[in-house]
């Protein structure tokens, strides 16, 4: 009697922990979904007052005027600043990231040299943004000034160079992975026809690995768009639309970083709306990147 009841108790305890565990598993998934929904709704709700005031004009207005009584906020200079800086960064990164991808994925797969290069790239990815900013400020800026590109050495171009260095790891890693996965039989076929290695790269590797390499660049672009500290320290933080790549500018992320602390009222909700726009833009860019990757694996 007694034994059987204790057995049943154990059994129901067992069933309970089984159930609890399964709920925990699903619960963690639900929590992730809730966090995402929470982020989106929080940003939406936070931007409502600004949206009520400026409507869609917020996106294409060029004003950023916090003067009391004449307050007016628009996001265009920052959207342009963000896109120009990060696209320029991507263009600067391209030859380097592509070379690294080829170097690690095709030319030198194993050995000491490539593993050295791999560690260097891992380390580049590990350097904090604020340290990149410092280095840009103290080491890169004087060079820009000496070249006469900008009087103080600040601006879009300076930020883009630093961003380009920062995203090298992201732009090159996916590329080297897909390049190394190009089937050897295809390459052998080309070699057997007398192709040089350069021609194999051109006619076999790039067509086969191209979309994967491209996906890597898109994801790196997403990184660059959201990067904050290094850009804040170098871009000059001017709230006007930049007139050229050597001009000063500002990005959405660094605007938030600079002004959020002391903001309230209309300025605060405008900054939240900038955050929402930034969230949407990076979301779209990353989604496109993932989409290409998914097509690749399918």
């Amino acid at each position, binding site marked *: 009697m007694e034994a059987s009841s204790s057995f049943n108790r154990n059994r129901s305890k067992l069933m309970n922990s089984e159930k*609890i565990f399964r709920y925990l598993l699903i619960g963690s998934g639900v929590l992730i979904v809730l*966090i995402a929904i*929470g982020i989106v709704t929080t940003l939406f709700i936070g931007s409502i007052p600004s949206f009520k005031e400026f409507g869609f004009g917020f996106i294409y207005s060029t004003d950023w005027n916090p003067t009391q009584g004449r307050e007016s906020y628009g996001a265009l200079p920052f959207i342009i600043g963000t896109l120009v800086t990060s696209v320029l960064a991507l263009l600067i990164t391209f030859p380097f990231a592509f070379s690294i991808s080829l170097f690690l994925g095709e030319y030198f797969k194993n050995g000491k040299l490539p593993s050295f290069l791999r560690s260097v790239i891992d380390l580049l990815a*590990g350097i904090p943004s604020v340290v990149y900013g410092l280095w840009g400020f103290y*080491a890169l800026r004087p060079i820009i000034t000496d070249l006469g590109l900008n009087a103080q050495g600040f601006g879009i171009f300076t930020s883009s160079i630093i961003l380009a260095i920062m995203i090298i790891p992201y732009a090159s890693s996916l590329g080297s992975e897909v390049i190394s996965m190009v089937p050897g039989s295809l390459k052998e076929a080309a070699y057997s026809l007398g192709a040089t290695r350069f021609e194999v790269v051109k006619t076999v590797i790039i067509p086969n690995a191209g979309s994967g390499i491209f996906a890597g660049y898109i994801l790196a672009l997403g990184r660059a768009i*959201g990067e904050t500290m290094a850009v804040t320290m170098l871009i000059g933080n001017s709230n006007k639309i930049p007139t050229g790549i050597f001009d000063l500018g500002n990005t959405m992320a660094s605007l938030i970083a600079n002004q959020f602390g002391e903001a309230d009222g209309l300025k605060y909700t405008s*900054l*939240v709306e900038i955050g929402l726009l930034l969230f949407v833009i*990076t979301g779209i860019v990353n989604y496109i990147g993932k989409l290409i990757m998914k097509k690749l694996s399918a």
Partner: protein
Amino acid sequence: MNTSAQISNAKLNRRLLKDKLFTYAIIFLAFLSSVPLFLILFELIKKGYKQINISFFYKVAPDTMEAMVAVKNNEIIPGGIANGIVGTLIIVGMASLIAIPVGIICGMYLAENSKGKFAGVVRFIVDMLQGVPSIVLGVIGYIWVVKPITAGFSSLAGSVALSIMMLPSIVRSTEETLKMIPGTLKEAALSLGVPYHKTMLRVVLPSGISGILTGVILGISRIAGETAPLMLTALGSAAISTDITEPSSAIPLLVWEFYNDPNLVDMIWSASLFLLILILCLNLTAKAIAKRWKVQY
């Protein structure tokens, strides 16, 4: 006959030359990319090493006046970054406390439901969360915690922002690792009448420990150097702060403060150097664990 052979020879030589130039260009550009790393390291070590002494680790950051006097007398600036170290430990520690259990359980859920519809949604969202800019998470930390919960800037708010930031990498590394573990292991445990939860927690999870730990440590190293979200949440503090509802400093926040204060500029190098060494150690630990603790099936 002779001329056509010459032409094709010349053509071949041109092709071979092109090939050679391309190879050299690849090697040159690939290694040129590593130059900034060494320039940065060199700069940090050159300018930062003399500031790092014992008091650097137990004294709080100096105020502007102290620093100004020291600089005028051509002395080393007194003080250290203890408030930053303690702040980073608390903020990153709390973020890990939130993110690690959720991340590992969620990774397990995804690995166990590779085809489920809801799992697909969760996987998509994790991917998207990975791309959210850190500054946006700072805004979220501010709205979720600073305003309603701690009624002011706080290290808790910073932890919440950073925990969301490190979550995706833990989830994905756990999922990837667990997927690699042979299903026969799970079968073996279940066939012994071991309940599902114990099978997962005591057989499957320990078998993947190296991969999961590596993911966790890389997640920590990713957030340890974050500045932007902390500017909106933890704000910074001149004193060592252990109250999680109060503003707190962190090493990257100190770097930012030193950068903005002309008198303290000499401190940025040592603080950055320390931060970089910390992150470097985390990365090396992650690598060592991935290698050393790898479980052989």
